[in-house]
């Protein structure tokens, strides 16, 4: 028997999932995160999960780990005492930033404070030119003095970021050597290694953030490896990166900044696997929880990966208010819309929902924990979508009257509407907000979301997806089994994969294909070597080549696939066609006669998809094995279309559907009794423990072999 473990440390809970690779059975566990000693919760969680599932530690072949520890350290400013060594004349680049304001109309905004205060940003005499030529050699004596001073000030970590060093890293490397010599206790990183690309502010910001979290992450990972060894788990520890790729611990210790968004990344990976499994070429991953919703575009079974990310924003939902981090990251839009989002009437007399949230404490009015403001969850309760008695599987009773009071007082009365209209309004407005944000996210990346089926998960995602699917005009909705625990699943959903990128600006019409082939060959060889070390057979390795291209003079690239095999001038028509198709899909028309240039060449090298299918009941006490849920045989007289699913009906309640003219009697299904092949028609509500799916009157749904509920939208 072999098994794999996924562990996701979140702010409140540490989620775990174990998959028995022989049977395909999955089991999840949840323990409270222990912020002071995060590995403690991991150790506890693993111990009890293995015990419950009767899987011996010796069977664990791999542990895949995602964590928000790095992000939290940046938000809470709890990282190392960090210094910056930079070129003489430029210590303020970190503070001057782009010279812009992230909100044009608010006079009282402040940019995020740099991670390194001005007194710890030290200059060294040296200078390179834009082409890497040395204009001023490094003044080593002065550098030694500065490093000595930093050591005396108790600095724990040093970022080195010199002008133009992404072209010529010699001075940065020499400085790093000096730091290691003079102050070996300090963590040190060169910008030319962390993020070798133009733009001194972004590079310095990313590199300082990297060393700022490095000591903490390093201690944590060593501790975790030790504890896994003590538990006699033989499996390799893999760390999930924000790109969705997986790293081995030495790389994660050196470049911990690449782990910043690994939690949400895992959710997108679960969506990506669902897309691959079902042959969906496109999918929109939609995750709605208590405070925020996140959307992510999945193309050809891969989430979109970009390099622009911000952490520790002063205003969570405003671009430009955070510290820029240039690392590969799954591109996601985060929207201030969740179950806890507060509804209010603004001074224009209009209904607004979010981005402020009642969170979990005091929470929505219906929690009865002191919250008085009406929230999305309150509206969903009054509309009949949620069951007051079966919230979180019945662990929490919702107070219908409190929800009614809050909506009546704060929304219905000020707007002159009845409470149902007000609740329906809250539901619609929050859906519109999410759809609008997702659509802009799509167009900014050149994607038309109308061809993207919606993959809805998170506690509130399945409640809201029916209407969002209508607004976005998507063809269908996929509701995965275990929608409340997708992120932990996602850790195990990804094949072992490594991404590589090389900069090599070339005009296609005069491209040097020998150089390009060399870049591709190097990257592919590196990737194959890493996979071989992780035990992947050469025949199982899949390689994809991508070029980031644009019309000469533009500032945004469009990605297009590049054929495998040997490339030469003969490949030009194929690559041009691939680019033009991608460009036209985005912007309708092609500029005529403008040359095309490529900026970056990328390779993704991946092992095979995990063999186990992520199915099974995500509940410790009642784990099920794939296929073990069988529909009871149905009696005669039942419509063919609902074969079997009738047995899964556990009741009915009145739920609101505008298209049906108001409240209608709606069947409530037990998700755990829905087996593959069953069908049902809307209006319907499908309940599982951590989530409820709402299907409108015109919806037709079937349960597929992977136990996902597929809802076809009738145009």
């Amino acid at each position, binding site marked *: 028997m072999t098994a794999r473990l996924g562990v996701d440390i979140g702010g409140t809970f540490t989620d775990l999932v174990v998959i028995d690779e022989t049977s395909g059975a999955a089991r999840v566990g949840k323990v409270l995160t222990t912020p002071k000693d995060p590995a403690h919760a991991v150790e506890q969680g693993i111990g009890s999960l293995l015990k419950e599932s009767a899987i011996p530690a010796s069977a664990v072949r791999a542990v895949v780990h995602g964590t928000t520890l790095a992000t939290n350290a940046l938000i809470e400013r709890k990282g190392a005492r960090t210094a910056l060594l930079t070129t003489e004349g430029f210590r303020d680049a970190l*503070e*001057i930033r*782009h010279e812009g304001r992230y909100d044009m109309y608010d006079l009282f905004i402040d940019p995020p404070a740099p991670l390194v205060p001005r*007194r710890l940003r030290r200059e060294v005499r040296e200078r390179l030119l834009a082409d890497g030529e040395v204009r001023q050699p490094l003044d080593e004596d002065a550098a030694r003095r500065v490093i000595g001073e930093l050591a005396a000030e108790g600095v724990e970590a040093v970022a080195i970021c010199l002008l133009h060093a992404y072209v010529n890293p010699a001075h940065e490397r020499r400085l790093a050597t000096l730091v290691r010599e003079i102050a070996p206790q300090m963590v040190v990183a060169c910008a030319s290694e962390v993020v070798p690309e133009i733009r001194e502010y972004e590079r310095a910001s990313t590199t300082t953030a990297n060393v700022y979290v490095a000591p903490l992450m390093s201690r944590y990972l060593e501790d975790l490896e030790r504890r896994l060894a003590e538990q006699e788990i033989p499996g390799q520890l893999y760390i999930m990166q924000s790109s969705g790729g997986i790293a081995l611990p030495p790389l994660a210790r050196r470049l911990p900044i690449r782990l910043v968004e690994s939690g949400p990344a895992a959710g997108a990976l679960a969506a990506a696997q669902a897309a691959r499994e079902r042959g969906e070429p496109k999918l929109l991953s939609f995750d709605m929880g208590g405070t925020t919703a996140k959307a992510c575009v999945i193309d050809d079974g891969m989430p979109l990966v970009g390099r622009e990310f911000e952490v520790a924003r002063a205003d969570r939902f405003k671009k430009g208010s955070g510290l820029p981090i240039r690392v590969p990251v799954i591109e996601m839009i985060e929207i201030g819309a969740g179950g806890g989002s507060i509804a209010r009437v*603004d001074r224009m007399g209009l209904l607004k929902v979010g981005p402020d949230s009642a969170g979990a404490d005091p929470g929505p009015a219906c929690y009865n924990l002191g919250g008085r403001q009406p929230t999305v969850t309150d509206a969903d309760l009054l509309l009949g979508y949620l069951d007051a008695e079966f919230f979180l599987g019945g662990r929490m009773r919702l107070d219908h009257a409190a929800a009614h009071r809050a909506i009546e007082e704060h929304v219905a009365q000020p707007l002159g509407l009845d409470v149902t209209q007000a609740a329906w309004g809250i539901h619609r407005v929050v859906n*519109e907000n999410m759809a609008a944000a997702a659509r802009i996210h799509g167009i900014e990346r050149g994607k038309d979301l109308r061809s993207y089926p919606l993959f809805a998960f998170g506690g509130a995602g399945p409640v809201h997806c029916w209407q969002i699917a209508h607004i976005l005009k998507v063809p269908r909705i996929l509701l995965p089994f275990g929608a409340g625990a997708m992120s932990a699943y996602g850790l195990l959903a990804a094949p072992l994969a490594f991404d590589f990128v090389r900069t090599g600006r070339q005009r296609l019409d005069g491209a040097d294909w020998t150089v390009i082939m060399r870049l591709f060959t190097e990257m592919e060889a590196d990737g194959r070597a890493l996979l071989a070390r992780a035990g992947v057979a050469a025949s199982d390795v899949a390689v994809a080549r991508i070029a980031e291209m644009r019309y000469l003079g533009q500032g945004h690239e469009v990605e297009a696939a590049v054929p495998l095999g040997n490339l030469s001038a003969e490949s030009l028509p194929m690559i041009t066609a691939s680019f033009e198709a991608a460009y036209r899909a985005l912007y309708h028309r092609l*500029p005529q006669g*403008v040359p095309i240039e490529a900026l970056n060449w990328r390779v993704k090298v991946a092992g095979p998809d995990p063999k186990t299918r992520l199915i099974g009941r995500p509940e410790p006490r009642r784990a099920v094995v794939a296929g073990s849920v069988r529909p009871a045989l149905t009696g005669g007289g039942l419509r063919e279309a609902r074969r079997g699913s009738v047995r899964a009906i556990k009741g009915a309640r009145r739920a609101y559907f505008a298209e049906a003219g108001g409240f209608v009697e709606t069947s409530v299904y037990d998700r755990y009794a829905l087996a593959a092949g069953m069908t049902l028609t809307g209006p319907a509500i499908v309940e599982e423990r951590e989530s409820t799916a709402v299907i409108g009157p015109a919806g037709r749904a079937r349960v597929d072999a992977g136990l996902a509920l597929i809802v076809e939208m009738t145009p």
Partner: protein
Amino acid sequence: MTVRRRSPGKTGRVAPRRAPLRPPSVKAGLTAPAPTNPITLEICWNRLVGVVNEQAAALQRTSFTSIVREAGDLSAGVFDRRGFMVAQAVTGTPGHINSMALAMKHFLAACPLETLRPGDVLITNDPWLTSGHLNDVTICSPIFRGEECIAFFASTCHTADIGGHVLSAEAREVYEEGLQIPIMKLYEAGRPNEALIAIIRANTRLPEMVLGDFHAQIAGGAVGGERLLEFMAEFGLERLEPLADEIIGRTERTMRAAIRALRPGVYTNEATSDGFDEPITIRARCEIRGDELLVDYAGSSPASRRGVNVVMNYTEAYTTYGVKVIVSPDVPNNEGAFRPLRITAPTGSILNVQRPAAVAARHIVGHFLPHVIAGALGQALPDRVMAEGSANIWGIQVSGKDFAGEPFSYIFFSSGGTGARAIKDGLSATAFPSGVLGTPVEVIENLSPLIVERKCLRDDSGGPGKYRGGLGQTIAFRVRTREPFAASILCDRTVHPAAGFRGGGPGARGAVLIDGVAPANPKAEQLVPPGALVEVRLPGGGGYGLPAERDPALIARDLLEGYVRGA
């Protein structure tokens, strides 16, 4: 003195503000009721904002000009058949806030609805009809449902080049500043206007980029139009006007309520810009009268002989912005937000300049307006304003021949400190009121023969106060040439510093130094010997409140970090 809707000028086709154009074919409101339900309205409004944001996103992604893509120097909006702006995209340029809205009315006057055909695209860069200088090109796409025009999308973008002088204050007349494109059809029924395109090609230094950006603007309009039609079909909207009236009406009522909540009275203020060769006075009289706000610039200086003059449209844009950030930052930009404001400036003054004055560097004076407004309205609303800041963004432009003998011309922008706020320090090296961003040094050095020796905050440049003004910055550079090269610095506040408010001290003055020596006129084009060090010191912002009331912890921090040097 003219009223806000000034005289028609040379075009002779200006629609009066209070009598909106209503061609006989418009049957607004007859076919579909306005969505008065607040929830439907909120959703429809959101959709419209989404539509213009998609328009702007498509434009930015396909643009060939970095100032459009990265600094967001563009605007995009949707207009109804009457030319009323209903929604505007969230972008980075106050200078376009309502100048594009005003431009639309000129388009309609020149090309009435019944003369438009599907596939038409209109264009102009007339400074007096749009946003004040020739570099800003406005393109307008009528949107048709079948044969009927139902709306317009327009966008204004800072184009890469428009011929003439390269963005400087040196010209004496607008004719020297580049190619003027009157309101014309760039496309007629889908066919490009080849004659116009040939003229543009022949008159600009970078025709591919210029025409490429026109394409981007057209693409934005096409994306917007497609989404608008889908949205209207989904909600069964035959016409945009009933929805527009509801949106504009609510906005106007909210704006009026915000003004009515202010203390009525007359508040005056003035500020002095260095000007090109003599100081320029900007005098504002703000009157809060009931639910209207009247701003008059009587007493301001007459037009300058150089290109720092401001057309009325641009005066209105920065006045509106200056009022908005104080009175109603959360009220959306549309026709309704502008109606309660009455903005006037004497005809022929620097703030309402007449043809054919030079206007290329109009931002130098225009960027002062929000500061002048803040000084006036701050008397009524001291908690909502910031002290004077460095005002205009500085443009640093060099041209000559590089080591290889190749000619080059390069410009980048930079900002000094903002004024201190009523409850906190000012922002250092941050653009206000402009949203134009700085350029990374590595990018500068990759695209030009400049070598930047220093780009750092200017210690001690923030005006003292209970809250300190933002620090300015110093940029020092050399240029790798064998022969002398030209440097032109579009600067200000080198003589007249940013004033503090309520007892706060002034920020440090700006300076231009060439090998340590200040030229006679820092704004004039300088001939610089090869290898000389050009040092520009951008001004700091003014302080707010008495320095004696400053929190000792903030004083200690300033000394520790070196923002302020000990005596």
